[in-house]
């Protein structure tokens, strides 16, 4: 089984989605099978939640064949700037 790192996924999401901010957390204790991701990208502008998630899924289509648990949050740069915890 291929395992991926936080940095690898972060780089891939940044490139594919022209993301302005990406956070990837390995929740698998290092085995590389479970991740959560937060992506901020102008490509999400005007898109529904499911369209945004499809963009992320397709950016990681190869990786998601072996990553068995993946959760994601998607924001436009404007939404991200408005996040109270940000």
């Amino acid at each position, binding site marked *: 089984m291929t395992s991926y790192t936080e940095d690898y996924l972060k780089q891939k999401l940044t490139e594919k989605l022209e993301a302005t901010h990406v956070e990837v957390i390995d929740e698998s204790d290092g085995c590389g099978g479970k991740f959560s991701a937060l992506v901020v990208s102008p490509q999400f502008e005007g898109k529904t*939640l*499911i369209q945004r*998630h*499809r963009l992320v*899924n397709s950016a990681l*289509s190869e990786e*998601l*064949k072996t990553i068995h*648990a*993946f*959760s*994601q*949050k998607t924001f436009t740069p404007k939404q991200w700037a408005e996040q109270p915890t940000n």
Partner: protein
Amino acid sequence: ENTVTKEDLEKLVKNNKVVVFMKGDPEQPRCGFSNAVVQILRMHGVTYDSHDVLSSDDIRQGIKDFTNWPTIPQVFINGEFVGGCDILLQMHQSGDLIEELKKVGIKS
């Protein structure tokens, strides 16, 4: 060859107003993501059809191909694919889920 056809799945997702494909069943979810969906639907008092993908590799692969969505659980409302656990959770938090359920006559 997959024995579950697209027509079979179309029938399944339209059989109830809310249909869920998950790991395990609502009484005994076998994955945290599936459990989250069960808990959210419970909070809204929704009755729904559930299908355990662990009991059938054909359904498990078939539904992924059908929706072009790589992960389980998968939630359908009114025959339309809504998304997975993250999307349902965000709809729950934003109040959109109440609206979607209202559209199909489910009061939560």
